[in-house]
C-alpha cells in the first residue's frame, strides 16, 4: 500500500511539475517547408517561406510569406510568427533557395547558423540557387504539381539521379564549407515559361559565395569526377567524323572504378584520374560500314571523355575552386605539402596538373549490328 502511495504521489508530482512548454501540437504548428533568401533592389535581405495550411476551412493549401528589413533568419521567423496562425517551426524544411544575386553579394553561411545551432531545425534541406528571383519560383502556379517545396525537393532528387544536377543538403554544405580540401556547390534552378527547370549546378567559392554555373552536361562530368554517380551513367557525344559528317553517339557507363594518383612534382600537385568503365552503346545516329570502326568506338569515347573532363577541370581551376574534392587526396597522400597549401587550396589547386585517363571497354553494341 505504501508503495502504491509513493508511486501515486510521484506521479502527481510529475504531472504537476511537467512543463507544457515543450508541447507543440502538430495542427497548431506552421511547418516551414521552403525558405528563400533574396535581395531587393537596394540590396536589402528578403526572406520568403512557405508553409502548408492544415485547416479545412482555409481555401488556400499553401501559404507563402515574405519578410523585409531583416538581418537574420531568426528575425524573419519572428516576423512570420506574428503573421501565422501557428508556431513557425523549422523542423521539416525541405529546400533552401538562394537567388544568384544574393550569393554574389552575401556569404550564406552566416545566415544558416541557426540551422546548425538549434537542434530542432532540419538539416536534410536541399540547397539550390535560383537564376532569377526566388519569389517567382515560390509563387509558380503549378496546377498539376504537389506543394512547391515538396516538388522542388523531388525534382532535384530525380534530376540528380539522372546526373543532371548535384544534390547538396545542408549538412553536406557544412561539411564542404569546413573542409579546406573541397568547395561547396548546389543545384541551380530557373523559372521557365510555365515550368521550373533545373539548369545544372552552381559552384561556390570556399566561403559559400557564387563562382560559376555549370550546365547539365558539365554537371554530369563533374559528378563523374566526384565519384557521385548512380550507375549506369548515360553519356552523349557529338562526333566529328570529318568530311563534314557529324554524328552523335550515346552510351551508358557501367562498373565504373576509379583510381586517383596523387603526386607532388616541382612545386605542383599532380592528379591523375584513372577511370575504368564498361560501356554499352545505346544510340548511334550515323552509319559506318565496317565492324572495325565500331571497335574504335572505345577509343573515341575515351578521348571525348578525357577532353570533356579535363576542359571542365580547367574551367574550374580558373575560378580557384575545387568542387571535385581533390584536396582530400592531397591531404591523404601528400600531407606535408598539403599542410602548407591548405589555407589557400583553391590557389594551389589552380596550379595543379589534372589529367583524366579513362579506360573504356565496350561490353555490347545492343541487339543490332
Amino acid at each position: 500500500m505504501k508503495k502504491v502511495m509513493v508511486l501515486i504521489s510521484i506521479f502527481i508530482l510529475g504531472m504537476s511539475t511537467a512543463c507544457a512548454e515543450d508541447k507543440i501540437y502538430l495542427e497548431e504548428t506552421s511547418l516551414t517547408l521552403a525558405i528563400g533568401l533574396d535581395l531587393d533592389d537596394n540590396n536589402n535581405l528578403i526572406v520568403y517561406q512557405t508553409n502548408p495550411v492544415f485547416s479545412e476551412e482555409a481555401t488556400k493549401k499553401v501559404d507563402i510569406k515574405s519578410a523585409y528589413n531583416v538581418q537574420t533568419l531568426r528575425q524573419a521567423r519572428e516576423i512570420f510568427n506574428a503573421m501565422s496562425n501557428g508556431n513557425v517551426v523549422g523542423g521539416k524544411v525541405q529546400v533552401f533557395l538562394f537567388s544568384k544575386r544574393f550569393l554574389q553579394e552575401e556569404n550564406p553561411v552566416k545566415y544558416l547558423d541557426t540551422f546548425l545551432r538549434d537542434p530542432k531545425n532540419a538539416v536534410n534541406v536541399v540547397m539550390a540557387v535560383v537564376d532569377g528571383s526566388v519569389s517567382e519560383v515560390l509563387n509558380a502556379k503549378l496546377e498539376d504539381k504537389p506543394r512547391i517545396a515538396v516538388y522542388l525537393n523531388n525534382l532535384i532528387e530525380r534530376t540528380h539521379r539522372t546526373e543532371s544536377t548535384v544534390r547538396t543538403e545542408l549538412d553536406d554544405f557544412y561539411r564542404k564549407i569546413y573542409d579546406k580540401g573541397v568547395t561547396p556547390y548546389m543545384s541551380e534552378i530557373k523559372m521557365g515559361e510555365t515550368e521550373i527547370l533545373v539548369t545544372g549546378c552552381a559552384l561556390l567559392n570556399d566561403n559559400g559565395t557564387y563562382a560559376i554555373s555549370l550546365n547539365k552536361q558539365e554537371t554530369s562530368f563533374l559528378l563523374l569526377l566526384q565519384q557521385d554517380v548512380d550507375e549506369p551513367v548515360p553519356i552523349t557525344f557529338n562526333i566529328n567524323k570529318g568530311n563534314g559528317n557529324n554524328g552523335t553517339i550515346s552510351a551508358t557507363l557501367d562498373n565504373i572504378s576509379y583510381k586517383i594518383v596523387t603526386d607532388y612534382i616541382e612545386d605542383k600537385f599532380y592528379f591523375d584520374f584513372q577511370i575504368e568503365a564498361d560501356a554499352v552503346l545505346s544510340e548511334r545516329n550515323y552509319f559506318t560500314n565496317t565492324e572495325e570502326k565500331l571497335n574504335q568506338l572505345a577509343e573515341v569515347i575515351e578521348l571525348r571523355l578525357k577532353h570533356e573532363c579535363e576542359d571542365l577541370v580547367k574551367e574550374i581551376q580558373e575560378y580557384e575552386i575545387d568542387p571535385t574534392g581533390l584536396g582530400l587526396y592531397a591531404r591523404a597522400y601528400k600531407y606535408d605539402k598539403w599542410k602548407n597549401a591548405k589555407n589557400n587550396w583553391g590557389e594551389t589547386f589552380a596550379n595543379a596538373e589534372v589529367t583524366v585517363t579513362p579506360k573504356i571497354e565496350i561490353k555490347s553494341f545492343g541487339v543490332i549490328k
Partner: protein
Amino acid sequence: MRFLKSLVRGNKSYKSGEQAKEVLEHCVSTNLSNNLMTIKHLFTEMPDLVIRNFTISQTSEQAALVYIDGLIDKVSINEHILHPLLHEYRSNQTSSHPLVAIGSTRSTCSWLEIEDALFLGYSALFINGRSECILCDSQGWPQRALEEPQTESTLKGAHQGFIETAKQNIALIRRYIPNRELKIKELKVGKRGKTQISILYLADVVNPEVLREMINRINDIRVDAIINTGEIEELIEDNSFSIFPQLLVTERPDAVASHILQGRIALVVDASPGVLIGPMTFTSFFQTVDDYSTRWIVASTLRLLRFLGLFIAIFLPSLYIAVITFHYEVIPLQLLLTLGQSRAIVPFPPIIEALMMEIFLEMLREAGLRLPAPVGQAVGIVGGIVIGQAAVQAGLVSNIMVIVVSMTAIASFIIPNYDMSTSIRLLRFPMMVLAALFGMVGIVVGTMTVVGHLLSLESLKTPYGTPIGPVNFADHKDTFIRFPMWKLDRRPYSAKPKQLTRFNWDKDSGE
C-alpha cells in the same frame, strides 16, 4: 433455558464450536445409535444428509449408511452398496469385511475423517458393534462434458479441456504422461472450504527447491475457502503488486502436460477447471501448444508476430501522442501532412483524443464479453460504427487515431494468454500519459521502468525474465523462434530442472 439457548444458537451445527471439535476428536463408538446420534448432532439442518438404517442380510447386524445427497452417485449407492448388503448371501463368510461392490473403500474411526469424506461424496457405513466406519467411494455429482476451453482454443491440438473435477483433470494429464515419476502431492487449503489441491510434477526432473517453495507457499495460505484457481494464484505469487501474471492458469491438459515435461509444477484445484503452472517466464506467455504442431518456420514467424503485437499494443498509441505532441520531426513529410490535416478538425489535445478512444474500446470489449452472443454482436456493430465512422465525421477524433486504436486492439488480441493480454492492454495507459508529458523520453523511461520491473520479478524464486535477462542462449531455441523439434533436446533452463536433457536421458539421468 437450554431450549432458549439452542434457539438463539439455532442455526449452528452443534451446541458450540468447541463442543463440535471435542466430538470430532473422539473415535467412533461401537454403538450404532450413539454414532447416528453424533451424526445428527454434527449435521443439523442439513436436509440433504441421508441416513439409511437397515440390517445386513448375511450377518443380521444393524447398520446405517450415511451420505450427502447430491454428492453421490445414486446408482453405486443403490446397486453396489445397498443391494449386496441387503440381499446377497455368501456361505463362506470369513472376513469381517461387509460385502460392498465398490472399488475404493477404507475404514476409519476418526470423526474428523468421516466428516471430510462425507463432504467429498463418500458414503459412510456404520455397523452396530464395530468401532469403525467404512467409507465407500461413491462420488458422483453433476459434471460438465469435456469441452474445448473457450479462451484457449486451438487449431491443431487436442480439443479437450479441464472440467470442475480434480480427479478427472488429473486423469487427463496422466493420459499424456503415463510415467511413474509423475508424482501427485495432495494438500488441503482453506479453513472452511478445505479445497483439495494436487501438485503434479515429475519427481526426477523438477527442481526440489522450487517444489519446496511451492509447497511452503500453499501451506502458508490462510483463507476461508478457495473458489477458483485465480485466488490461489494471487495468494502464492511472488509479487502481487506486479501487473504481470507470474503463474500460468490454463484449461488445456496438453499444455499442462508439456509444461510438466519441461520441469514445471502443475497445481490442480478441485472444483475449478483452471490448472496453475509455475514457475513461468515472461516469454512463455507468448507460446501456445499450437506452436509445436505447426511447422517450425511458421510457428517461429507467428511467435515473432506476437512479440511485434506486444510492442504495438503497448507503444502505438503513446508513439502517436508523442509524435503529435512533441516530435513532429521524426515523421516523413508526406505522412506528416496527412496527419496534420486529419488532426486539424479535432478540438482536443491528442492525449484526450487517445484516452477517449482507448477507454471506449476497452468498454466495448468488456461489454461484449459478458453479453449473450447475439447481443454481443450488436454491441460490436454499434461500437464499430460509432468508433469508425461517426466519431470521425463529427470531428471528435481523427482518422489516424481510429486506425491507431484498431491496430492496438488487434495487436493486443494476438497475445495468446488472456491474463497477459489484459496486463499489456493496461500498460498502454500509463505509457500514453508519459508520452503526453515527456514525449519519446517519457516513453523510454516508462519502458525502462517496465523492463526493470520485469527483470526484478521472480516466479517461485526463479527469474521471470529468462532468457532475456538473465540471458540464457540455450533457452533461445524455444523463445522468440522455435527450432525444429529434434533441436530442442534440453528442457528450458528457466524452470531450473534437475534433469536438463530431454531425451537419451538414461545416459545422464539422475544428474
